[in-house]
């Protein structure tokens, strides 16, 4: 069976790098040979130049920082609100039966669709964008908390009853630890959503950040700056996801299964 033979790690890595280098070479060729107009596709050198220049004079770095702060703040708010509301809804079977269907209805709603409503409520402000980021990113955490509290094993419920645990103690000692793996997975997803909604918010509400920067770059046909911004956004997405995966691994060490 060929598919069970693992390539040696060193060689696999080298080949992987080679493919990536090949893609970059293709980009270089396509832009230099004008296969694609340079209006759309800047050369890799021009992009790197824009990226380094922007980072050195601090303009691009400042935008990136704005976006990262917006994303992190929104994500924190979303995580807190998600767990809190999730506990409120999930801790009692009655509340679940009455409210959970509404949550299922609201969940597929695109977070950005709430933005017009938020604009008319709060105006075009940084607070408005933060609200929409938090609202949009809250759902994965909220539903994970509700689900985690609902799926506590019957035996554990019986134990809690036998110990006469109060509802609060049940949530804190049994419910939330049971929900933790789901919540952490939800928080990872909600970080991705936070970045997306933060970028959209910056585009619509003209708040300083990478979203606004790349939109302006595209409108004024500065393709290399556009690509530099996209690359930075990719780096932010990569770093936040990798960091959270690491945290998740550390926090879930106690799990045996």
């Amino acid at each position, binding site marked *: 069976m060929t598919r069970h033979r693992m390539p040696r790690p060193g060689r696999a890595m080298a*080949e992987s790098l080679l493919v990536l280098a090949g893609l970059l070479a293709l980009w270089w060729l396509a832009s230099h040979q004008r296969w694609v107009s340079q209006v759309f596709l800047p050369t890799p050198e021009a992009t790197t130049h824009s990226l380094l220049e922007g980072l050195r004079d601090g303009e691009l770095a400042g935008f990136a920082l704005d976006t990262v702060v917006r994303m992190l703040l929104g994500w924190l708010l979303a995580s807190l609100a998600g767990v809190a509301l999730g506990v409120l809804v999930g801790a009692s079977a009655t509340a679940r039966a009455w409210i959970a269907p509404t949550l299922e209805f609201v969940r597929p709603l695109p977070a950005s669709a709430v933005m017009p409503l938020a604009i008319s409520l709060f105006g075009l402000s940084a607070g408005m964008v933060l609200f929409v980021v938090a609202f949009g990113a809250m759902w994965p955490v909220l539903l994970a908390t509700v689900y985690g509290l609902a799926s506590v094993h019957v035996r554990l419920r019986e134990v809690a009853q036998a110990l006469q645990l109060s509802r609060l103690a049940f949530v804190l000692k049994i419910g939330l630890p049971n929900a933790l793996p789901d919540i952490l997975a939800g928080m990872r997803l909600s970080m991705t959503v936070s970045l997306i909604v933060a970028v959209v918010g910056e585009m619509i509400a003209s708040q300083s950040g990478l979203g606004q920067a790349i939109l302006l770059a595209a409108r004024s046909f500065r393709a290399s700056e556009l690509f530099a911004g996209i690359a930075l956004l990719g780096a932010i997405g990569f770093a936040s996801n990798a960091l959270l995966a690491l945290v998740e691994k550390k926090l879930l060490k106690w799990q045996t299964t």
Partner: protein
Amino acid sequence: MHAIAARLRPLVFPALVLGSLEWYTRTTGQGSDALAPPSQAVLAFGRALLSRGDDSVLQATFFTLGSAGLGLLLGALLGISLGILLGLSRRAAAMGFLSIEVLRPIPSVALIPLAMLVFGFGYRMEISVVAFATFWPMLILTQAAVQQVEPCLLEVSQALGLSPWARTTQIVLPALVPRLFVALRLGVAIALVVAVTVEIAANPSGMGYALMISQQSLAPDLMLAWLFWIGVVGYAINVAALQLQRGVARRMGDLTGGRPP
């Protein structure tokens, strides 16, 4: 009697919310530019439904669903083909690993300005962003699904001396179908969200733009109507996709209901 009560129960909470909104907007919040009574939103929606112009509900809905569907089709075709290739060959998977990890974290909305620059406004820019957004989950889920195909099936295909093409089309693809529909269901949800987002951020067509423009023209009743309509359409399509996935799973004899890998 009891059964009817249980069926009505999910409606109570939304009814309470809508009722208090109606009450608030008719008393304290009267004449607000941000909120309108739900009853007026219903009327505004009725007018938009009947109109034949650019703000026609059917036309906007068709545009959004059309570009979401075509984008998903493109993203799924590319993602599934590459996913099968990477799933069948460990070597190919190892080779593509770094490139995928570098490109995948780019948020799909970051491509909106680029798509705007390349295609201008219209179907093509929206389709391209949706295709990019759906490509990655389809790729990853297909790859995982192929790796979980029963090894015996592949051994049989080798014993039969099937060519790689025949092995893919006659053994791997049929074994994949239930899991592919799970991935497609996820893709449907993503495609719809991304399509509406593209319209809100840039593209002047579809439901997202109608929502945005009703806010800018200070018509809160119409805005709430569009928000609700987007919610209803999204809900209906997600439910339909779930039914389709379950139906396919049952037909293919997968008793787990096609759980994600």
